[in-house]
């Protein structure tokens, strides 16, 4: 036994074990195996298959978990479907009470949850006790509030119905809370599939749901591996899928759900930059790195795994980091004085080892502290990699372990370029004492969350989610609630006259020179009796009219099959050029003052009105619309332009009330480059109704006009030219729709896609978009009625054109 006198000399910390007694007792009660939680009851796996959940710190088996079969998923979804009506009819206040009860219940059992989480996942008890579980409770409290306020804050919105949720193993209960709380607050019912390595706290949670008054079937937990998750997300009754996990699986889910009309939110991987400027408080930076990459053993999707440091202080920072790494403590996750616990699984540990070795073989210098890691259990030491090239594995690949790569930069411009030199965009951390610098860099970094002089701070009031291939959708805050709501389909204006049908063009597009009935519309003679001067319609790319790359033309035929005009046949190269032009134009357009964008939209309206007659003639003569319908299209188009000119400088950000001394700014940023495949219906109004919100919010767009009457694009060219819309902000391409849509949907430079075509087209867009996980708005069936101001316009359009970036700025001198 170490004597007090001896400790007095060495000043060792000694062991400080958290008791696992009650957790052990709970596990012992379930020694015969854990069941699924379906319809408020424990339900054994239909195929009788179970697998072990293992404590990664010591290899001990904690329990036997049910492997969910498709039959189990079926039963759970059916239970959720059956509970849907009842849960919705309970009303907002009742749901608020239930969520409040869950929050209180989590608090009452906080330590049991924390101990169980640490045993199952391997994370230090300090983290599960002080971060995971308090954030879980906070999340349910916050969403008890949204539940209460649902009608007032989200009028005209309805839940999706049954929600399928698949969560990862790195923050098992916290990810459950991020999914379950907003789903319930919005009135959905759900089936949750925890990660196979870490199901225990979800099962304990299910046990508490009953006590908290959650009606049977509202929350269902089906355990199992990836197959169970795949069955869940593919289930046709699941109307909304929420997934947190790897980008690869996210892509699979995107493809698997393509064309099913499901709302999807994906929170995926990251390779988040941690940017250190020379004027930063370097000692605090070091602690920031500890929180960024050695928190939860680096198994954090938003881990600051790339340190970008200004060259002049790189040496000093490295020295300080190494010294700090020597004092990190690794060991039994249940020891209260441990900084780092175990890696969740042997597979994950192998991945980490393999990636670090690959980095080493590429020439990176790998440094680890001198202390030895525990011999038993799945441990990996904190690792600092220097000499990493931007193209290197360690700089590009998400390791999901306690491994950080360090690179240098010279100027802040270069730091932004390096920060954005990744396909991910989940988070970023910026360290400087210069507020001017911080506030220049924060908006320039492509990331859903930016922490200034801090890192890995989370709160239920602030939405969390990614840019680029880190996924789409937000969890937390008002922005997160929208993921679980949809517009009430019955809330549109009654249209007794059913004008809608009258806005479908009766024209069509045909290939080649073959005219079905041989006739061309005789070109009307001008007033002086001469043949009008021939006009050639081109593509509109980069603010210029361009001949199509292929050099072919398509004919537009009127309802009688007579040729009323020709359109250029754009091809993949024209799409490529248009995206290039959009990429070039978007940054300055996005940064232009909203007031300027508003002025340009008003100017567009001004010029559109001047061409009212020409447009009406085109719509009646070419598309076969009635004069009334044509007039209505033009009038409503003008209204739309006014709408979004008005909103351009009013749809702005918020300051979230997060419980720290900081300002959490929710900035509304444009998505970037958007593709729009316009509706066939209402050829002018449908196009204007999408272009206006998209450019009002600072995006650049590549639009494909109505497939039945693409001629409508022609007058727009001159309109755009004369209204000061900068070249490249709006690009219009005509041609074979499916071919163009496919190229655009697969293009990695396009950030989002609005497709208002057929269900098949929507399906194709969703599937092809998986490559770079672009955000899709593809209603397929259930197209908005453009004539209806509640469906064809409004905040929804702005939300779909933007993404929220939360910037956390702590203050204090």
């Amino acid at each position, binding site marked *: 036994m170490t004597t*007090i006198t001896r*400790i*007095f000399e060495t000043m060792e*910390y*000694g*062991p400080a074990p958290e008791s696992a007694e009650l957790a052990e007792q709970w596990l012992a009660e379930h020694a015969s195996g854990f069941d699924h939680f379906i319809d408020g009851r424990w339900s054994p796996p239909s195929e009788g298959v179970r697998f072990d959940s293992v404590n990664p710190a010591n290899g001990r088996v904690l329990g036997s978990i049910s492997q969910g079969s498709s039959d189990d998923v079926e039963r759970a979804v059916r239970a959720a479907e059956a509970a849907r009506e009842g849960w919705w009819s309970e009303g907002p206040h009742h749901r608020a009470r239930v969520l409040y009860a869950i929050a209180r219940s989590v608090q009452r059992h906080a330590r049991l949850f924390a101990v169980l989480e640490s045993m199952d996942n391997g994370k230090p008890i300090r983290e599960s006790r002080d971060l995971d579980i308090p954030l879980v409770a906070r999340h349910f409290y916050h969403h008890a509030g949204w539940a209460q306020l649902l009608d007032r804050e989200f009028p005209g919105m309805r839940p999706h119905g049954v929600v399928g949720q698949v969560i990862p193993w790195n923050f098992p209960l916290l990810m459950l809370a991020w999914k379950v709380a907003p789903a319930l607050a919005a009135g959905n019912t759900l089936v949750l599939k925890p990660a196979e390595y870490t199901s225990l706290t979800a099962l304990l949670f299910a046990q508490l749901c009953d006590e908290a008054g959650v009606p049977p079937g509202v929350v269902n937990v089906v355990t199992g591996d990836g197959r169970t998750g795949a069955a869940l997300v593919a289930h046709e009754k699941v109307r909304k899928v929420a997934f947190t996990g790897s980008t690869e699986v996210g892509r699979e889910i995107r493809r698997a759900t393509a064309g099913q009309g499901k709302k999807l939110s994906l929170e995926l991987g990251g390779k988040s930059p941690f940017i250190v400027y020379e004027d930063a408080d370097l*000692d*605090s930076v070091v602690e920031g790195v500890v929180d960024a990459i050695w928190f939860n053993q680096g198994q954090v999707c938003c881990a600051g795994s790339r340190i970008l440091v200004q060259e002049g202080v790189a040496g000093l920072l490295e020295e300080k980091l190494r010294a700090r790494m020597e004092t990190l403590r690794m060991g039994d996750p249940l020891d209260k004085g441990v900084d780092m616990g175990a890696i969740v699984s042997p597979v994950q540990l192998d991945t980490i080892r393999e990636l670090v070795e690959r980095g080493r073989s590429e020439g990176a210098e790998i440094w680890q502290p001198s202390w030895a890691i525990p011999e038993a259990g799945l441990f990996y030491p904190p690792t600092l990699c220097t000499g990493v090239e931007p193209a290197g594995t360690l700089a590009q690949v998400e390791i999901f372990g306690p491994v950080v790569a360090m690179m240098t930069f010279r100027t802040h411009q270069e730091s932004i370029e390096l920060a954005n030199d990744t396909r991910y965009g989940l988070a970023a951390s910026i360290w400087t004492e210069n507020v001017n610098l911080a506030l220049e860099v924060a908006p320039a970094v492509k990331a859903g969350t930016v922490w200034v002089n801090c890192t890995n701070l989370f709160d239920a009031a602030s939405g969390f989610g990614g840019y680029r291939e880190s996924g789409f959708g937000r969890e937390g805050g008002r922005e997160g609630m929208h993921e679980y709501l949809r517009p009430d389909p019955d809330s549109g204006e009654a249209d007794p006259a059913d004008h809608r049908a009258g806005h479908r063009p009766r024209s069509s597009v045909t290939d080649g020179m073959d005219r079905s009935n041989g006739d061309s519309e005789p070109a009307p003679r001008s007033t002086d009796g001469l043949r009008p001067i021939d006009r050639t319609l081109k593509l509109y790319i980069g603010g210029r009219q361009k001949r199509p790359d292929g050099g072919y033309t398509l004919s537009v035929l009127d309802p009688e099959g007579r040729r009323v005009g020709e359109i250029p046949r754009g091809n993949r190269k024209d799409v490529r050029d248009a995206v290039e032009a959009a990429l070039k134009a978007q940054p300055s357009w996005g940064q232009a003052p909203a007031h300027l964008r508003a002025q340009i939209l008003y100017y567009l309206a001004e010029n559109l009105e001047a061409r009212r007659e020409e447009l009406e003639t085109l719509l009646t003569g070419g598309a076969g619309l009635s004069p009334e319908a044509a007039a209505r299209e033009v009038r409503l188009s003008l209204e739309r332009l006014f709408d979004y000119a008005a909103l351009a400088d009013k749809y702005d950000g918020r300051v979230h009330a997060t419980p720290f001394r900081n300002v959490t700014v929710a900035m509304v940023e444009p998505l970037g480059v958007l593709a729009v495949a316009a509706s066939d219906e209402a050829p002018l109004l449908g196009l204007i109704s999408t272009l206006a919100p998209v450019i009002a919010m600072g995006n650049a767009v590549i639009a494909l006009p109505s497939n039945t009457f693409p001629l409508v694009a022609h007058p727009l060219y001159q309109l755009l030219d004369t209204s000061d819309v900068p070249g490249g902000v709006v690009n219009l391409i005509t041609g074979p729709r499916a071919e163009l849509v496919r190229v655009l949907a697969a293009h990695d430079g396009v950030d989002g896609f609005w497709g208002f075509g057929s269900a098949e087209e929507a399906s194709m867009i969703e599937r092809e978009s998986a490559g770079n996980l672009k955000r899709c708005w593809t209603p397929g069936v259930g197209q908005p009625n453009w004539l209806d101001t509640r469906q064809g316009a409004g905040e929804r359009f702005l939300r779909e054109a933007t993404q929220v970036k939360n910037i956390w700025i702590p203050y204090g001198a």
Partner: protein
Amino acid sequence: MATTRTRESDRSVSDPEVDTVPTPARLNPGMPLELDWVRDLRLNRSAVERRASTLGTRRTVKKRWQAAWLLKAVSLMDLTTLSGDDTAGRVRRLCAKARRPLRPDLVEALEIEGLGLTTGAVCVYHAFVPVALEALDGTGIPVAAVSTGFPHGLSPLRLRIAEIEASVEAGATEIDVVITRSHVLTGNWSALYHEVRAFREACGGAHLKVILATGELGTLTRIAQASIVSMMAGADFIKTSTGKESVNATLPTGIAMARQIRSYRDRTGFEVGLKAAGGIGTAKQALQWLILVREELGTGWMDPHLFRFGASSLLGDIERQLEHHVTGRYSAHHRHPLA
């Protein structure tokens, strides 16, 4: 434990008086004022506060380890009385407590007779230096005197220097001086440097402990700057507070100062001590400070030559916690002898 002390430095200047000082520690020779270093310093308050708030949640000591750490806290204590109504009798009682800080039965139960535990020093006003010296005769416990117009430090410089000299002459081996806060508040680093330098010279072979009165300096960056300038001017210890400011020793302040001590060590090789004074009254707080010192400076600093608590009521709480460790029952104040 002296082996964990100062690292040899190329920059060290040999001080002829060092050998006559009764403590084994070498005095900080100081260095020329380096203004770039001072002006480039930046501390981020929020980040430092986050660190401070998790020090006690990331580390903890239990059972025998906790007992040993609390005993360490006792050994690092400048048992202090600085009141207008101090008398010789009060100082003698304090010294008796410094010699024997724990009840003998506790010492026996903890099996620490071999430690010969005493407090780190006794800290009094100049007038009581002789009484304290007499009461501590033969124990090796140093007597510290507060000086230089304590606590405000605004008497004429000439008198402040004379005050130091008088206390050194009276036998104090540690002098706790206060600085002119306005030098810090106006960024007059040269004035601060020369003031502390003058105190250093007046101290001769005695240890110079420079009180920054951090509660009156406004920002952590100012505190860090004052720390560095004091060390450049030859402070052997930098100390948070007089105990008379409305805000005394706080953990963020301690982190700010400890980190400057660290960079001064990295740059000069010389190890300067830290003294946390004022507002530390519980065993729990003492443990948090020890964790801070261990985490930010290392175990080498957990030694009376490099870390001190300035405290008057802390010992009482530590005694109760130690009794609880021994008996398993919670203790009461009146069961432990008064200081």
